[in-house]
């Protein structure tokens, strides 16, 4: 009998462990949504050095409010913390603020918070500082009225304000705020464990009635896409974004998972450096446009994650213009090259870094397609830090990259990147410069859009770039997630979403 004891002990232990393991399986908690995201959260300071990072903005949408929001469907600004606004003169704007809104710490939202938010953005000297560089002063005549004065007329003020997350009055311009952010948003901050998770709880006193519908929102860091998909399939998370074309195809057959694909403000392109020969010749640049078969790439390599671009900025962005695509024509491309004096083609280099989905495959396809017309491309992948260094020093012939118009305004992309002052592409065109300057200081949106239309046209036809794709964003979620509405851009919002138990 005694000999059997060890065996019995082992059996009991195994049974115990098996039961415990069974219980360790993921259990969906009621009211909690767990989402995994593709980028690392650096910090949560909406005005800090990570303020232009996509994850900081997305989390900011949940923690904070802005004065106004951009409604891409209705093509107009909507009130948020500001109920009304008007331009008193071309350099003066007045905002009437919503009353009775409280920050997560219980303090009241007043005009002083707006002044702090703008002044702090200016003081931090981070990536979104240039958006408010032209703001001369923020006056607070009473707790519910703000007057913003700009040095020059500022056509982009309203768009830029959609990126200004409002923080409590008196917040110092130090990094501590990013560790424990306080806003007026639908969710309040609970915890941020780097490279692990960000936990947010519902703000029960949110000023929009009935929002948020979730009790808790957990952002889980899983660096590998395959890991995110596994966790989604096992039910350890409820939602993830940015899938590959293969995963989209595979998951579309799943009963438990739903896939949505929506637009973004993001465009991907090849920049051409006209300060390097032979790219100074517009014919060579146009030859490049005809040599690329963009639909072939979007229907295979980036199917479901991008569609052919119709202009320099994505179609949902304010003042976007659609153009006829160039059309794939290698004969024409060769003829243009011959006319430019390169009948036998030439050698050039394409630099890129693999920050964007499928960038490697796209770079390979471009290299292959250009070889067909005699443009011999050295295909160079660079680590991000080195790539950025080269990019900013204009140390490249062709550069494969992308950018998002974060504020939803044409100026954010066009004014920032294509004015010769920006020194981003080496392209300089006095007409483009003057149109961009005029547009930025024009308050009338219709007039601004006319100017951007002309800029778009110049960039499209003789441009320092081949505009390849407009990115699409894919969202995969388990069927317990309900009420998810596709956003107009890659900045999504889960305050409207609920989960079934």
């Amino acid at each position, binding site marked *: 009998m005694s000999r059997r004891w060890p065996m019995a002990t082992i059996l009991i232990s195994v049974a115990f462990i098996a039961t415990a*393991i*069974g219980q*360790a*399986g*993921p259990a969906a908690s009621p009211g909690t949504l767990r989402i995994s995201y593709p980028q*690392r959260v*650096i*910090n949560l*300071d909406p005005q*800090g*050095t*990570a303020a*232009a*990072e996509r994850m900081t903005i997305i989390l900011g949408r949940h923690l904070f409010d802005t004065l106004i929001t951009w409604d891409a469907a209705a093509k107009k600004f909507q009130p948020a913390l500001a109920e009304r606004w008007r331009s008193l003169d071309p350099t003066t704007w007045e905002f009437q603020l919503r009353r009775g809104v409280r920050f997560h710490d219980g303090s009241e939202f007043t005009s002083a918070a707006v002044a702090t938010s703008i002044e702090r953005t200016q003081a931090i*000297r*981070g*990536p*979104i*500082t*240039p958006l408010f560089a032209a703001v001369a002063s923020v006056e607070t005549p009473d707790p519910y009225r703000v007057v913003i004065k700009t040095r020059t007329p500022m056509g982009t003020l309203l768009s830029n304000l959609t990126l200004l997350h409002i923080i409590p009055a008196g917040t110092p311009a130090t*990094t*501590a705020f*990013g*560790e424990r952010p306080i806003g007026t948003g639908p969710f309040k901050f609970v915890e941020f*464990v*780097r*490279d*692990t*998770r960000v936990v947010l709880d519902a703000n029960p006193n949110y000023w929009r009635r009935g929002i948020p519908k979730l009790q808790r929102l957990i952002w*889980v*860091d*899983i*660096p*590998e896409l*395959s*890991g995110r998909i*596994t*966790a989604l*399939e*096992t039910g*350890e998370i409820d939602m993830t974004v940015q899938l590959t074309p293969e995963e989209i195809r595979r998951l579309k057959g799943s009963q438990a998972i739903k896939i949505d694909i929506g637009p973004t403000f993001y465009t991907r392109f090849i920049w051409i450096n006209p300060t390097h020969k032979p790219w100074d010749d517009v014919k060579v640049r146009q030859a490049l446009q005809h040599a690329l078969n963009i639909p072939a790439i979007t229907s295979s390599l980036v199917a479901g994650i991008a569609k052919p671009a119709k202009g320099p900025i994505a179609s949902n962005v304010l003042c976007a213009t659609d153009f006829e695509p160039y059309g794939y024509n290698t004969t024409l491309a060769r003829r243009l090259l011959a006319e430019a004096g390169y009948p036998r083609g030439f050698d050039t280099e394409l630099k890129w870094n693999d920050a964007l989905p499928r960038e490697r495959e796209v770079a390979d396809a471009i290299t292959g397609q250009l070889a067909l017309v005699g443009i011999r491309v050295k295909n160079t992948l660079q*680590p*991000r*830090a*080195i790539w*950025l*260094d080269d*990019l*900013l020093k204009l140390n490249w012939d062709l550069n494969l*990259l992308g*950018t998002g118009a974060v504020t939803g305004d044409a100026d954010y992309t066009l004014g*920032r990147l294509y004015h010769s002052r*920006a*020194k981003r592409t080496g392209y300089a065109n006095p007409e483009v410069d003057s149109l961009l300057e005029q547009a930025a200081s024009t308050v009338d949106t219709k007039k601004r859009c006319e100017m951007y239309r002309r800029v778009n046209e110049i960039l499209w036809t003789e441009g320092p770039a081949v505009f390849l794709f407009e990115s699409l964003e894919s969202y995969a979620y388990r069927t317990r997630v309900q009420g998810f509405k596709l956003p107009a851009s890659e900045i999504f919002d889960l305050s409207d979403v609920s989960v079934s138990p």
Partner: protein
Amino acid sequence: MGRYLVRRVLSALLVIWGVITIIFLVVRVVPGDPASVLLGTFATPELVAEQRAKMGLDSPLLVQYGLFIRQAVLGDWGRSYHEGKEAFSLVLERLPATMELAVAAIAVTIVLSFVFGSLAARWVQSPVDQAIGGLSLLGQAIPNFWLGLVLILIFARRLNWLPSFGRDTLWHLILPTVTLSVQLIGVMTRLIRAGILETMSQDFVRTARAKGVAEAAVLTHHVYRNMMIPVVTMLGLQLGALLGGVVVLETVFAWPGLGRLIVTAINNRDYPVVQASVTFAAVTVVFLNALVDLTYAYLDPRIRYG
């Protein structure tokens, strides 16, 4: 012993100074500008220049180095450019996760490799020995990121027994630990088997047996103790390597360890974090080596430090 310790501490300090000097220089020699990485493609050249000045990168290298050493001596490793937190506190934040995984993997390795090594040595040249030999070779040969993915596929995706990612409960520790220890067990089992076989043929083992000491006691009191020096050395080296972080596995299992912190910091040219974490890893290795050396004297009383 006292003089030995003083000499040992001095040479350790020299090694650590060497490491931090090399890492200080290497991060600055490698192309890539921390300020432009920090501000990304959104910044203007003026903002980048301002940021460089704020980071102190506009002063001569020697001045930067002097400042860096002075601060380091005072225990100030600077603030992370990206995260905005003290670089050293970021390292400390990661320490529990890294230690947990390293200690678990080493513990599992010690237990299992002693069992397997002893079994193989006990029945040398038998099918048991051959099977263990084959498996430990396989364990050493399997790339651990691949093993990790396969284990996730089986135990998380198919069977739904274990969590597929993250660090939360004890269950989360199982798959990364198994993945990490398979390779180590492979190495250690072979080392232990060889050690036992070599020691078994020594005169003192024969004497012990002749005295009538039970076989188990022969193994624990005489054989193990006499073959421990290479084993402890190897374990010390492995533990040191694990405490520096295991990047690939941390990525596969979304484990928030030091490895990912270091790689992210290198990619972002976040000098303070690179410096703090590499120095930490160097200090750990130096400390563990010293500990291993001291263990020798305990294991083999003939070894005296003086």
